[in-house]
C-alpha cells in the first residue's frame, strides 16, 4: 500500500523519533490515552526489531478514515535476513538475541490488525493497525 509518510529507521534515535511521531498522530486523531500508549508501545517494539534484526529499514505512517472509523496503520519494512519461522518468532519468550522475546507477540496483542510477512534473505514486513 502506498500513501502515508515514510520514515527511516537507522539508529536508536530514529526509534525515539518514530515513537514521538506515532504518539503525536494518535493524539491528533483523537485516540484515548490507553490507545495512544498501546500503538506507541507496539511501534517501539517493531521499530527496534527493524533496527536490531532487520539491519534498519523504514516505517510508513498511514492515517485511515473509513467512513465513521478512524485509525492509524504502521507498516515496517526491512531488507534484512528475514525470519525463518514466523510462528516461532511470535511465540512469547522466543528470542534469537538477548531480548525478552515478547516484542512481536506483544505488538500483535496491542493492535487490532496485525500482518507479518517475511522471506528468508529478502526481508520482513510487519503491518499493524489500531482503530480509534
Amino acid at each position, binding site marked *: 500500500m502506498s500513501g502515508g509518510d515514510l520514515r527511516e529507521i537507522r539508529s536508536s534515535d530514529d526509534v525515539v523519533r518514530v515513537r514521538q511521531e506515532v504518539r503525536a498522530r494518535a493524539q491528533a486523531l483523537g485516540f484515548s490515552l490507553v490507545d495512544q500508549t498501546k500503538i506507541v508501545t507496539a511501534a517501539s517494539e517493531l521499530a527496534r526489531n527493524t533496527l536490531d534484526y532487520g539491519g534498519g529499514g523504514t516505517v510508513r505512517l498511514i492515517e485511515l478514515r473509513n467512513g465513521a472509523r478512524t485509525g492509524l496503520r504502521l507498516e515496517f519494512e526491512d531488507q534484512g535476513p528475514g525470519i525463518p519461522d514466523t510462528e516461532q518468532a511470535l511465540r512469547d519468550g522466543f528470542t534469537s538475541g538477548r531480548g*525478552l522475546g515478547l516484542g512481536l507477540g*506483544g505488538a500483535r496483542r496491542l493492535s487490532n490488525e496485525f500482518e507479518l510477512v517475511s522471506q528468508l534473505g529478502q526481508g520482513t514486513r510487519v503491518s499493524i493497525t489500531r482503530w480509534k
Partner: protein
Amino acid sequence: MSDTEVAARLLAEGEVEIIAEWLRLQETEGGGGSGRISSAELRVQCDRFLALLRRGLNQGAETAQDAAFAELRDMLRDLSRSRAIQGFTPTETASFIFSLKEVTFRLLQKDVGAAWALNRLLDAFGLYTFESYQRAREEVIARQQREITELSTPVVKLWDSVLALPLIGTLDSERTQVVMENLLQNIVDLNAEIAIIDITGVPTVDTLVAQHLLKTIAAARLMGADCIISGIRPQIAQTMVHLGVDLNVVTKASLADAFALALRRVGQSVTRVVPAARAGA
C-alpha cells in the same frame, strides 16, 4: 624572491598599519564578539597570528596544511574553541581571519603574486577556524549530553536505608547503564534495604525498558536491597499486561504509597500529630 617571501616582507613592513586596521575592522564588524573579549586580548591574538603567519611564509609554506604552519593551526584551533565556548557565532569567530584578508588585500596590491598567495592561505585558514569552531561546539554538546544523562538520574535518600530513583524520559541503553550503576553504588554506600524506582516520568514502557528494569531489580537484590516500582500509570499497566511483561516485584501507584510501604518494611511509621491548641479547644 618567491611570492610567499614577498608577502612576508610586505606584512613585516606594514605591520603597524595592518594591526591597527585589522583591530578596527574586527571591533566595528562585531568580530570582537560584542565585548566578550578585551581589546588587549584581541591585540595579543592578532600579534601572535601575524608573527606565526610570517614565520610560515618565510619558510616558503604555500598551503595551510604545511608543517611550517603547525603552530599557527594550533593557535587557530584554541582560538576557535575558546570562542565557541564563550558563545561567539561562527561568523564572529571566522571574521578574525576574514577581516585580516580585507586589510592585506588592500595593502598587498603592489604585488599581485604575493596578494594572491596570501589570499588563498587566508581563505584556507578561515575555513579551518570554521571547522575547529564546529568541532568544539560538537564536543560541548556531547559533554552536555553526558552531563544531562548523569544529572537526570539522581538517587534520592528518603530515609535511613530507603532510596528512591525517579526516572524521567527515554531510557535508552546508555543512560540505563548509568542509572543502574548509580543506584547500585548508592545501595552499597548507604547500606540501603529498599530502593523505590519511580517511573511516573517514563513515557513508554516497552520490552527494552522492562528488561532494563528487570536487570536493575535483580542486581539490587544481589546487593541486598528490595525494589518497589511506583508510578505505573493505568495506561502503562494495561500495555504491560498486553506485552506480557511481568516485573515480579511489588508495585505501587504512587511514590507516596511506595514510601509508606517502605517505611513499614523497615519498621518505621508516620503518625499524625494532634496540635495541642486544637485538642484543647
